[in-house]
């Protein structure tokens, strides 16, 4: 409400700024020639000074004097060129102003503005929570810890999602390469490594990236993201036939309603064109479609799909924010339906912590404890994880 009151005041001020001069009644202008006369007189005096300094010859000065005098005379005797009084446009102008200012301002503002959003200065946001849980501190703490313990693969794993989210792909790649060097990498990590390398090179699949991606695809054929980048790498290195085979394989392994198919088909078309094959070359059959509610999720329910991630990378930050929130929500929904999944709970808590939704993380922890209360061993790991994440 306060905001709209201020808007109203500002709008009124803007309208008044225009209306006041319009409303003040003043005689119609008669052209002010006095200033011009003053300037010509000053020019004459300056001419005399120049003459006395020898800046101009006597005959030339005389000629210039005549020129200026002629203009002076013309200015002095100029007829008052006031236009005969016509019907004043003041009133129409005033009315137009009164209409235009508020309506245009509000109209434009409603198009572009976000009246519901409060200011969110960082310090205030951080004050709302205990400082040791804010992401920067957490990352900084982990980074410090890793400086002295570079062999802690779990530590590096904590950092990766943060780096990816912050767009620090080079950092993500170097963290992942350390995890791989430590021999603690899962296929998830390798896939992420390939992705980080590609992202860090503005979409170019380098040799390193290609090697890792190939390894992932061989180890687990059902990784659409890895396979997509792998195929793309083949395409970029000129192996169009190989790329086509990989794209076809990817299509074959995807449900018919997988969201990434459109992108893959587009790429496949490029490859077909490069191979000089007809664009409608038949593609392999897909898997049967998943049920609608699940279709928005990744086929294995494991996380975002290749296309999701692609979309995320190209999206505006705002969209990306909501997409990430959406994915976390999906995970929460899945856990609500199937709560006996300790890994899922830990993942959810971590997600909430990274998104700085501390209360949600705490609630999730509570729910997880309820769901897993029969299993003492699991409960213990859960507590440990919660402690590590700083949930309680």
């Amino acid at each position, binding site marked *: 409400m*306060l*905001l709209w009151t201020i808007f109203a005041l500002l709008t009124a001020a*803007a309208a008044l*700024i*225009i209306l006041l*001069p*319009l409303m*003040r009644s*003043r005689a119609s*202008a008669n052209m002010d020639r006095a*200033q*011009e*006369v*003053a*300037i010509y*007189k*000053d020019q004459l*005096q*300056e001419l005399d000074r120049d003459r006395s*300094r*020898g*800046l*101009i010859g006597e*005959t*030339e*000065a005389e000629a210039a004097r005549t*020129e200026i005098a002629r203009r002076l005379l013309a200015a002095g005797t100029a007829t008052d060129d006031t*236009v005969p009084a*016509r019907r*004043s*446009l003041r009133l129409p*102008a005033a009315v137009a*102003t009164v209409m*235009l*200012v508020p309506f*245009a*301002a509000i109209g*434009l*503002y409603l198009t*572009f*503005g976000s009246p519901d*959003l409060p*200011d*969110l*200065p*960082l310090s*205030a946001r951080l004050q709302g929570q205990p400082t040791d849980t*804010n*992401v920067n501190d957490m990352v900084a703490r982990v980074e410090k810890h890793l400086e002295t313990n570079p062999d802690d693969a779990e530590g590096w794993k904590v950092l990766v999602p943060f780096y990816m989210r*912050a767009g620090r792909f*080079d*950092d993500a790649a*170097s963290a992942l390469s350390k995890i791989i060097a430590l021999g603690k990498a899962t296929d998830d990590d390798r896939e992420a490594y390939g992705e980080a390398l590609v992202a860090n090179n503005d979409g170019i699949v380098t040799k390193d990236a290609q090697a890792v991606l190939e390894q992932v695809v061989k180890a687990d054929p059902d990784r659409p993201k890895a396979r997509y980048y792998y195929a793309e790498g083949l395409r970029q290195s000129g192996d169009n036939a190989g790329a086509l085979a990989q794209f076809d394989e990817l299509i074959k392994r995807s449900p018919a309603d997988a969201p990434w198919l459109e992108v893959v088909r587009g790429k496949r078309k490029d490859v077909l064109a490069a191979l000089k094959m007809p664009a409608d070359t038949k593609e392999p059959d897909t898997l049967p479609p998943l049920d609608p509610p699940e279709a928005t999720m990744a086929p294995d329910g494991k996380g975002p799909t290749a296309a999701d991630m692609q979309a995320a990378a190209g999206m505006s*930050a*705002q969209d990306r*924010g*909501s997409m990430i*929130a959406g994915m976390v929500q999906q995970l929460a929904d899945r856990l609500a339906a199937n709560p006996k999944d300790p890994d899922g709970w830990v993942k959810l808590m971590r997600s909430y912590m990274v*998104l*700085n939704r501390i209360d949600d993380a705490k609630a999730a922890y509570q729910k997880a404890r309820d769901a897993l209360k029969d299993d003492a061993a699991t409960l213990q790991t859960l507590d440990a994880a919660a402690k590590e994440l700083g949930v309680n």
Partner: protein
Amino acid sequence: MIIEIGHFSLILALILALVQSVVPVIGAARRDNAMMAVAPAAALGQMLFITISFGALSHAYLTSDFSVLNVFENSHSLKPLLYKFSGLWGNHEGSMLLWVLILAIFGGAVAAFGGNLPKTLKANVLGVQGWVSVAFLLFILLTSNPFLRIADNPPLEGRDLNPVLQDPGLAIHPPLLYLGYVGFSISFAFAIAALLEGRIDAAWARWVRPWALAAWIFLTAGIAMGSYWAYYELGWGGFWFWDPVENASLMPWLAGTALLHSALVMEKRNALKIWTILLAILAFSLSLLGTFLVRSGVLTSVHAFASDPTRGVFILGILCVFIGGGLSLFAWRASTLQQGGLFAPVSRESALVMNNIFLTVSAAVILFGTMAPLLASAMGGAISVGAPYFNTVFGPLFGAMLVIMPFGPLLAWKRGDLRAAAQRLWAVLGLAILASLVSWWLTHGGPVMAMVGIGVAFWVLIGSFAELWTRARFLEVGVATGFRRLSGLPRSVFGTAVGHAGLGLSLLGIVATTSFQSETITEMKPGDTAKVGGYEVTFNGMTNQAGPNYTEMAANMTVRENGVEVFDLKPSKRMFTARQMPTTEAGIKTHGFSQLYITLGDPGQGADSVVVRMWDKPLVTLIWLGALVMMAGGMLSLSDRRLRVGAPKPARLTTAAGSSS
């Protein structure tokens, strides 16, 4: 809430600009006082609202409000406060907001201090200002809105922490440059207003010249600052790269310099009116063209921002409307303007015309060189036009202008005596040749072109004061009377001399640095000594230290001259941890007007060894000191009483002018 108030204020500013661009112009055509009076009110209001808007965005930057997309993308909570603030104009959207803020301030200044302008002229000038404002405010709101928000879960950390841009030089460089660019919008508005009215008052030139002069001073400062920043921050040791961005600032500078000189003729002699109008349009057009060609990412430049097709189209539209419209209006109305005063082929007017020809042709060849890659790529080729082209083409043209420059102030108005001027300059020529011979002897026989360059630099430098010397007549009337005579001269005479001398100084610095600098690239291990110029540089070893957000590897260098230790230098390489981005901090030591400049490269082959690049750059600081001197000349001219005789209150003025002579 503050953010949204800023956003709303920006919209209100657009609406005020809209009113300002229509109502006063109609009012001027109908001689309606009330409608014309809307112009200053709307201009001041617009300034107020854009200031609020700018303040709101600054607040968001200073408080790291990452719910604002623009702040998230271009700031970081770990940035030092100054760079949080300057980060506002380190990006496309924010810099456009700064652009309109400066535009509005200039508009407000005309509104506030334009009391002595003829009413219709003032209304039309502000009206045209309004058109420019509308175009750019629309551009901001529709394609580059800095107030867009992130609705859900705004991130807790921003993206940008580019260490190269964290530098005080870069914090003030863009505002200065913009003050220059946008300042020319005032002369543009005056030119268009004159064309609209179909007549030019005598007040016109007196009004345009101070604005053009102010814009020129800022632009000079901005260019010099940018050049110095690139010199010490990028670590390449160069002061000018003929990069499109640099050309974009040099072209309006050349056109603006031409405008200053032709406006002088117009103001004093009522000649060159049409040409001055054209230059006023050109100077602003080049400002627009340069800024936006680079902004839109059409040209390759290290300063380019991410390009966006909609922006490109919008920018193209703005360019077409203002440049095309301005020139068409000129073609249509110019013939209605009165003929100006007469002058002989040898006269001060002619000298100023020569200056104008050389300056505009120089600007044209730079424009051609800057656009050539674009033309070539349109025709399917790929070329890049670099320093060799610009040096070959710009050098002789500008050089020729410098050679004739000292003659100008010695020629009388309307009809000058070339022989008399030449006689006065014989002594200057002698001194210049002497200087060039001395430098030849000092450098043990340098290249011929360098001698010529030094000669020209001294010719300009000493020749600038020839007018003062002849006016004072020290030899005939004695020192005391001579100084009394000098003190009687108007300040603009000193302004001319100082301004021209500044150009000579810069030239001297450029010639000395490019011809006589010595450079050494070598790999050094601790204990090694390398020679550069007259110095022996010893590398003592590296120290590692940590800064607030970086770690630093600094080399300890001891510099000796003839075996005597003269000073220490610490060039370093910094690694900014957050971005894993290295920067090179050159070690620079100024001695006299020269500098010793050392940068570090990568580690060399051996243990502890490092690749080092060293320059001894004689007189290099003169390049920028010359620019400062030029600015001082501009300010002297600006303070000349003549430029204030626009007639604040006609009655009072005539008496004041009468009594002062």
